[in-house]
């Protein structure tokens, strides 16, 4: 996993880089927009961690430029600007996620992995959590190496939850992903699918847990992580 870290404070850049390398990323570092553009030209990374306040300009300009070139590379913005308006501005300009300084490197790594788990992302093909592995190409699920037999609907639910690992997934996002426009699911259809999925995963010995967030949706996490 190749990561480009754009950060101008030397000690912070150095320490973040080392921490991200420990987390399994190959890190290139740029301390200015100019350096970042040079690296992007010769060695495109899988994900970018972008600081906004840089000595030669605003990180959002670089982001804007990338999106104008139809470059869809995932970008995590890290900044000291904490206001919601900054966040909206960042997301409007094409940021995929946003994290406020000071952020722990582990958190940065987790967010980057989440971005890479998207369909088409580097980690998007084989989704893994605990002893559970989901191969999106063959649409097969294994727990502890043994296959788990799931109905199509349950597999779809599991895929959405795994791609958004560590995040709450709103009901309607899941419903949009698993039902076609013609299907009219009953009010409790999703609950029924999730409870079947829970039971089957438990029976298969998968050490994952699907949490209900009442009024919002669901969240999957590794069991015992809580």
């Amino acid at each position, binding site marked *: 996993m190749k990561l480009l870290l754009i950060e101008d*404070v030397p*000690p*912070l850049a150095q*320490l*973040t880089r*080392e*921490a991200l390398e*420990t987390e399994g990323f190959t890190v290139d570092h740029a301390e200015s927009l100019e350096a970042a553009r040079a690296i992007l030209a010769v060695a495109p990374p899988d994900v970018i961690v972008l600081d906004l306040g840089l000595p030669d300009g605003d990180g959002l300009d670089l982001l804007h430029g990338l999106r104008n070139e139809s470059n869809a590379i995932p970008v995590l913005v890290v900044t*000291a600007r*904490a*206001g*919601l*308006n900054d966040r909206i501005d960042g997301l409007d300009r094409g940021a995929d996620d946003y994290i*406020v*300084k*000071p*952020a*722990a*490197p*582990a958190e940065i790594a987790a967010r980057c992995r989440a971005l890479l788990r998207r369909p088409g992302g580097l980690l998007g093909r084989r989704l893994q959590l605990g002893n559970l592995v989901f191969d999106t190409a063959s649409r097969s699920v294994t727990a502890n190496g043994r296959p788990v037999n799931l109905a199509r609907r349950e597999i779809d639910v599991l895929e959405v939850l795994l791609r958004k690992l*560590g*995040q*709450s997934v*709103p009901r309607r996002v899941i419903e949009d992903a698993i039902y076609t426009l013609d299907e009219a699911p009953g009010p409790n259809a999703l609950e029924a699918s999730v409870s079947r999925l829970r039971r089957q995963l438990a029976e298969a010995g998968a050490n994952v847990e699907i*949490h209900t*967030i*009442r*009024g*919002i*949706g669901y*969240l999957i*996490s590794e069991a015992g*992580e*809580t």
Partner: protein
Amino acid sequence: MSRSLVTTLIRRLLLVGGLLTLVNIVFVTAYYSSDPEGLRREKVSHQIDRLAEALKPGPDGRLAFMPSDRLLRTFTRYPDAYAFRIEDATGRVLGEANTALVPAERWSVPNGPDAWWSDVPVNGRSVLVGSRRAVAGGEPVRIAFAAAGDPSNLLLFVYFDELFVHVIVSLLPFAICLMIVNAVTVRQSLRSLVHAAEAARKAGPSHGIAALPTRGLPSEVLALVESINVALRRLGEALEAERAFTAEAAHALRTPLAVLSARIEKLPKGGELDAVRTDIAALRRLVNQLLSAAQADTLVVDPTRQCDLPAVAESVVSAMAPLAIREGRGLALESDTTTSVSGDADAIAHALRNLIENALRFSPPGEEVLVRVSAPGQLTVLDRGPGIPDEQKPLVIKRFWRASASDLGGTGLGLAIVQRIAEAHGATLAIRDRAGGGAEFSIAFTPASLQ
């Protein structure tokens, strides 16, 4: 004790008016007492006027004397003191009474508008006779009146009549006009002062310190208001400097803290280092909350801005659910309204995050923190923690206040920030006991439709 300017002015005017009246009475009295003959003639003249008023065209079309009982009573009661005789140009007597009081020749009056016989001696008394040629009902008449002494105090009537004409009729309307003009003028001049007072009342950290409006102020108070404006400006600058310092200090602390966190992450896990990590996390939270507090202090909500409360609640609950689950607590949202409220979505989200963090910290493991959005614009966070004793309810919103000295998880700023954000929205943070145990924090925002 302060009294209305209008009241004071009216009281003074009444006082001055009263004094003027007294002076007038004294003056009139002095004038008449210096001229007793004039006064006596005045009395006769007055009585002739009254007699003339009783002359009206009769049923036959000719002039007739039709006196009131009251007028006649003077003559019937005092036959020895008053007498009169009225005749027309032909010598026909229209009315008379007690004519025996003076010799008959005295009743035939010479030509001329007015005629007087002073001090006619009758039976040892001095009688005053006066007569007047007048025109009543288009006919020339002659009215004569005689008085020996003044047992009926007719003079007093004259006197009061004079007072009435000189004091009441001339002074009173003028005085009333003066008071009305005064009251209106004072009120109008002070209206702009009321606006200034309104602006001064609102001035404060939450609404910003703006200069008081001076438009339309009377010059007498303009100097005072301008001095207040100078003081307000200095106060505003000081406040601004203090906020800027807090914000800059918190901001400047972030980078070294991030460096420190990253350095600690590199060290092996376990033992004392885990405690240091916890401490650094707490420090980081404190710095973040300090910055938030500085931002909340300067928050001025544009009342025309609308905020979709259920959507804000959904996004905050959604974002915080992973944290709650990591800490072994539940987080749920109950939203039964689609009402927008007037407010700043960023600030409201921030307040809700703080309320949820607070509720999660005090919730026992396994319990659920509930966020409820209800009509018309109520945002409530309910927990199943130990609850807050009544005597502590007003304290929890104070800065750096903690439930106990050992509670180091919180910064002591979270609820103060929430209260500040609520204030900026014209609301307050209400803290109640939750039915069945726990605490309930709620903010009632103004529904956008009411703006």
